[in-house]
């Protein structure tokens, strides 16, 4: 076995070439990791919105709360199920909520976006444990006041603390800003559902969120509600429901991003191949010498293969490092499923790190394989004679 330091030091000697080839690999891995981090960040934000012991009820066939309509009678029937947990006063922990989309403009531009606005009931705040006020206060009952998620408060015009928004022929004052542990709620505006109903004169709810009296009661609840002839609803676990909301957009980002990255990973691979072929060509005499000294073909093959792998590992590591700085950025874009704005971050996960390194090493392996084979198969005499 030729010592690894041979491969390593050969890279060090031809610094410019090593730098350029590793740089090409680094750029490709950067984009690859960035795309995966984007899709994962989107999913994580939405999945974190849900909790394991909540179930959400929407109209049958509705793919998002915007499409769903449940009237008061149906809501009362749903709330009476025994599978729902109760609070200290024996009242069911069931939050009836209305979701609408309103148009707001990003600060400094004329670009409109649709913001999910949620009319909540008193139970909602108790049940959504992630939501905490970071400044201001909650609205006073009966007043035209709203609180705004931190994901959108900074980005959009007119929704800073104390500012007023106008919709449904009323002016609403922003009295508080809330955090929701990076979940989808941070991209929403919340207010009293009764005020929303009055403003839009739509006495129907979009969804009911129910706290289960035990996570295992879910299947019985689902079966009972979905087969009740008075209702046309579907029941999902909250986490599942929100994860489904991320599906279209996350898949789109992944498919597009990975397809493009794969294409130009071929470019980086070819770059590695060129470098390795040149490395072999320039060290023909050395290879002949090594063979003459008794090193078998296999060792030559592995030595050059390791050189290629080192190269791509360095490039991959650099690309990943660059990509990790993206985590400081918050992205805000429209989620295709709900048609509304969602703020999320690039998120790195151990899986993404491993996938990126494997991707980098594959580029090195595939790029370096043929040149390494060529090196191993050189005839000793011819190699020694080369100049």
């Amino acid at each position: 076995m030729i010592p690894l330091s041979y491969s390593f030091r050969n890279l060090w000697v031809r610094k410019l070439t090593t730098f350029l080839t590793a740089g090409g690999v680094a750029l490709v891995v950067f984009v690859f990791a960035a795309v995966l981090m984007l899709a994962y960040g989107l999913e994580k934000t939405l999945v974190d919105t849900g909790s394991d012991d909540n179930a959400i009820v929407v109209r049958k066939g509705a793919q998002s709360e915007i499409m769903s309509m449940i009237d008061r009678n149906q809501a009362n029937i749903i709330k009476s199920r025994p599978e729902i947990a109760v609070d200290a006063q024996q009242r069911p922990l069931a939050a009836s909520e209305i979701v609408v989309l309103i148009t707001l403009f990003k600060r400094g531009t004329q670009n409109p976006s649709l913001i999910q606005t949620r009319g909540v009931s008193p139970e909602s705040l108790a049940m959504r444990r992630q939501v905490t006020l970071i400044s201001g206060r909650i609205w006073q009952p009966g007043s035209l006041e709203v609180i705004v998620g931190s994901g959108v408060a900074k980005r959009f015009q007119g929704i800073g603390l104390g500012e007023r928004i106008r919709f449904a022929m009323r002016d609403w004052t922003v009295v508080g800003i809330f955090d929701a542990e990076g979940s989808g709620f941070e991209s929403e505006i919340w207010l009293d559902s009764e005020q929303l109903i009055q403003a839009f004169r739509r006495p129907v709810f979009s969804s009911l969120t129910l706290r289960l009296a035990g996570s295992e009661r879910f299947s019985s609840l689902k079966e009972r509600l979905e087969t009740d002839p008075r209702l046309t609803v579907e029941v999902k676990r909250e986490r599942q429901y929100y994860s489904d909301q991320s599906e279209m957009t996350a898949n789109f980002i992944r498919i597009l991003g990975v397809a493009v990255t794969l294409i130009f990973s071929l470019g980086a691979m070819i770059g590695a191949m060129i470098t390795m072929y040149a490395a072999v060509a320039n060290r023909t005499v050395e290879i002949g010498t090594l063979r003459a000294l008794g090193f078998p073909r296999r060792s030559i093959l592995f030595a050059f293969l390791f050189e290629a792998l080192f190269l791509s590992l360095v490039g991959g590591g650099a690309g990943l490092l660059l990509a990790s700085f993206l985590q400081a950025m918050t992205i805000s874009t429209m989620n295709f499923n709900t048609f509304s704005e969602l703020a999320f971050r690039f998120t790195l996960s151990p899986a993404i790190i491993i996938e990126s390194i494997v991707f980098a090493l594959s580029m090195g392996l595939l790029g370096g394989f043929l040149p390494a084979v060529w090196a191993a198969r050189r005839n000793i005499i011819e190699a020694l004679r080369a100049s």
Partner: protein
Amino acid sequence: MALLKLVFKNAFRHKLRSALTIAGIAIAILAFGLLRTVIAAWYAGVEASAPNRLIVRNAVSFTFPLPLSYKNGIVAAPGVSGVTYALWFGGIYIDEKHFFPQFAVEPTTWFEIYPEFRFPAEQKRAFLRERNAVVVGRKIAERFGWKLGDTVRLRGTFFPGDWDFTIRGIYTGADKTTDETAFMFHWAYINEQVRKTEPDRAGYIGWYVVRVNDPEQAGVISQTIDQRFQNSLAETKTETEKAFQQGFVSMTGAILTALKVISVVIIGVILAVLSNTMAMTARERLPEYAVLKTLGFGAVHLAVLIAGESLLIALAGGGLGIALIYPAASGFGKAMENFLPIFEVKSITLVAAAFIAVGVGLVAALFPTWRAVHLKIVDGLRRIG
């Protein structure tokens, strides 16, 4: 002339290396071309907009309906030559993956105001006669194997239940920017049913499309319409069709920016690959350059030699990549038809790709040229490897 011959021969001295470099550049240019085409496809709606059309929607957001009764008020506004309306149906055909846009429209006026949807007159007559008739675009008819007279069932989401439609027309677009994946049927078909099951929701449409006589008056007419419905339960926002479509594009602005950034990064990859090759090549040829300098060739000649070789390889790779963009784009376009119905390679993309090839060819030659020019002849002749 001898210099050019030298450039040519030099470029293909190392056939494998040159071939690999050309391949690498070609692939990267291909990726660049595809990415720019995806970015251009994003703006397809904006490009298809006509300057003499305005969109009137609910001021709160596009997802709130407008009353049908507004139609008379809009028609009466000065400068308006026609009004039609539509409602987004959002139904499911088989499953969510088989997505295409579905609109419940005012059957007579819709196709007058959108003349770009072209289909024969007898199909139009058949469409107008039946309440549950539908006109579908050529692309989705091909995708799902639909023919005239077929029944299509959609599962409603905003309007629950199963809805059956009969295909009475298949349209083609007037030009390349027209969406050929739309599914358009009678609004009255939906409204009839809604009146029976959910009477509060009856009599509402999604948005109005207004044709104006003079596009210059668009701003004034928009304001007139909005003022008419101010302080009512459904306040309106009127804007040009282009501004409306632009609004949608800006909603996904972050993704678009990311794609644009990636397309720039690709250029970096191309540059890295070519610079690497040129650096290696130049280093190997230092003794030769020393000989040339001894013979009296100056910096300019060396620059032409090196830059010429670099450009030749870059242009060969660029040319190959550009040639591959068209077939790759049609394949890609088919795969993404759901998301991006219009997928056309624009000539500006090809021009940009050519510029990049030339630019990269020149930049990659910079360092090797500098090195060759500043080489001391003695050092060059001394080098062994």
